């Protein structure tokens, strides 16, 4: 690690500074959000549907760029990086878990998860080995060769988490990970995310479920594209 890296390491993982995201039709998804996420946090972003949660998640994960304001991820100013460099940043540091899973239907679970390392330049054999390890850790060791449609909803969500986690990202972003699950599977999901957090990953969970939000150590409330509550507000500058 260079000296510059050391400096970056001391910085917050994510900084959003007066971020606004407005779409072409004039729809404002995120009005004005400033947020710091420290390394090693386990937090929830909470709010009703349409409050801009998903847009915020995309902005944090560099899938989207703000219309105004700036986003910093792991010390990099998103505005200063090209699309190509942002892709590299995502490949090495960010894992996404989507509500719709987005698993490839005709591909075995193992390869679905191994794809999480595809763009990080890891050789195929190692990708598959690491995918198997993660799947076993998440209790899916018996499902490696199954296709996604042969799995239950909770299992599919676990596969999606495994794919996000296999690259050991610094930041794991989960969009409504419990949204499609019954309460028991939802509880398991939270345990999994806690486990990843315990291994050093910063985890941000988007949810409209207050129980889920309450179970995490920090909670940011979003309404109409603005932060209306932050349990870590005192700590923020």
């Amino acid at each position, binding site marked *: 690690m*260079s000296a*510059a*890296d050391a*400096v*970056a390491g001391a*910085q*917050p993982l994510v*900084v959003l*500074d*007066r971020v606004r995201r407005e779409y072409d039709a004039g729809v404002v998804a995120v009005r004005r959000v*400033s947020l*710091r996420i420290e390394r090693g946090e386990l937090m929830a972003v909470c709010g009703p549907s349409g409050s801009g949660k998903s*847009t915020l998640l*995309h902005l944090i*994960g560099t*899938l*989207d760029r703000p219309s105004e304001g*700036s986003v*910093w991820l792991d*010390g*990099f*100013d998103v505005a*200063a*990086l090209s*699309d*190509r*460099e*942002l*892709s*590299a*940043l*995502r*490949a*090495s540091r*960010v894992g*996404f878990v*989507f509500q*719709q899973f*987005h698993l*490839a*239907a*005709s*591909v075995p679970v193992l390869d679905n998860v191994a*794809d*999480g390392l*595809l*763009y*990080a*330049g*890891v*050789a*195929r054999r190692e990708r598959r080995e690491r995918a198997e390890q993660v799947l076993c850790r998440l209790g899916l060791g018996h499902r490696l060769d199954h296709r996604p449609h042969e799995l239950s909803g909770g299992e599919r969500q676990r596969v999606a988490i495994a*794919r996000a986690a296999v690259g050991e990202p610094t930041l794991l972003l989960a969009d409504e990970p419990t949204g499609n699950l019954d309460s028991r599977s939802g509880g398991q999901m939270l345990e999994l995310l806690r486990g990843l957090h315990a291994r050093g990953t910063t985890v941000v969970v988007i949810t409209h479920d207050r129980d889920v939000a309450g179970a995490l150590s920090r909670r940011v409330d979003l309404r109409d594209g603005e932060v209306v509550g932050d349990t870590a507000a005192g700590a*923020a*500058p």
Partner: protein
Amino acid sequence: MSAPAATTRQRPVPARLWAADLFRLGGAGLRARPLRAVLSALGIAIGIAAMVAVLGISASSRAQLRSTLDQLGTNMLTVSPGQTLFGEQSHLPDESVGMVARIGPVATATATGRVSTANVYRNDRIPTGETGGIAILAARTDLLATVHGSVAGGTWLNAATARYPAVVLGAEAAKLLGIGAASPGTQVWLGGHWFTVVGILDPVPLAPELDTAALVGWPVATGLLGFDGHPTTVYERSSDDAVQAVRNVLPQTANPEHPEEVQVSRPSDALAAKAAVNSTLTGLLLGLGAVALLVGGVGVANTMVISVLERRSEVGLRRSLGATRGQIRSQFLTESLLLSGLGGAAGAVIGAGVTAGYALWRGWPVAVPPYASVGGVVATLLIGGLAGLYPAVRASRLSPTEALATP
């Protein structure tokens, strides 16, 4: 809130996507919808198969012609009397055969003479008008060897049978007369005499005029049929490299008085010209194949456009996993190349198979020109690239968030 200060760190660089992984990605796209992949590859395959088969069949036919010419030899020239300056039918002097034979490089020289005073009929009850277009030719006994002909049945004329009313029929002439085989009892009514059919010829490619002729010996023609003894066609063979030189001196040698009335031709040229006519048809068929290929290419483009539309969420997912636009583009381009490449390879195999089947059926040597197969596959890759380019670029330009939002 203060923005972090230091950004002197190295900028993130995307890892490279290995060729094997790219290949696998493209293949996975096809495997996900096997029927569709097969059908659109089929379009390409039909186009390529058509083109390869057309080229292969015409190459096989040329190979056949070459081997025929090798067998028959291209060193035969024929000399025939043309017309006089006043438009009358000229004739060659009686000595012309001997004179031609004395040209240095000439190995053999022989002749036929048209017996215009006689016709041949199956029997003596046929009306005189129904000659069937069969010419009576007086033939020298060394004719068959010179034109590289062969008898299908019976024997060729020899010194003995040439003096007697014996006839050898050309392949077509025998058919016209309804004579299947030569035998001592088979007779035809020729010039007012019964002639025994002693032999029937195979078709003679270099001297097709013999196919529709009834050939009798020179002595019997002059003695019995009132033949004037003038040769009408002189056939000669020389060494291959002397053909042109012989050709130049033939008119003066054959008819020193009127060299301008002599026509010299090389029958093997006529066969080669026939092949040239075929190549025009080949060009036309090739064009049809190209149209089929183009339609196949449009099919691939269509498949790829639909594939990209259906897989927007996959594109979004891959972008979230860290795929660059270039890597998305490469993935779809690879898929398109694989699709058309598979079609092209299948087409080349089918085309070669059709060629082999057709050539074997016709008894030709099988010749599939390598440039046709290789060119076909290269053409499909070009088409695949073109067809896949637009969909691939479209996929790569999708905004990740919009792509993810599609169900």
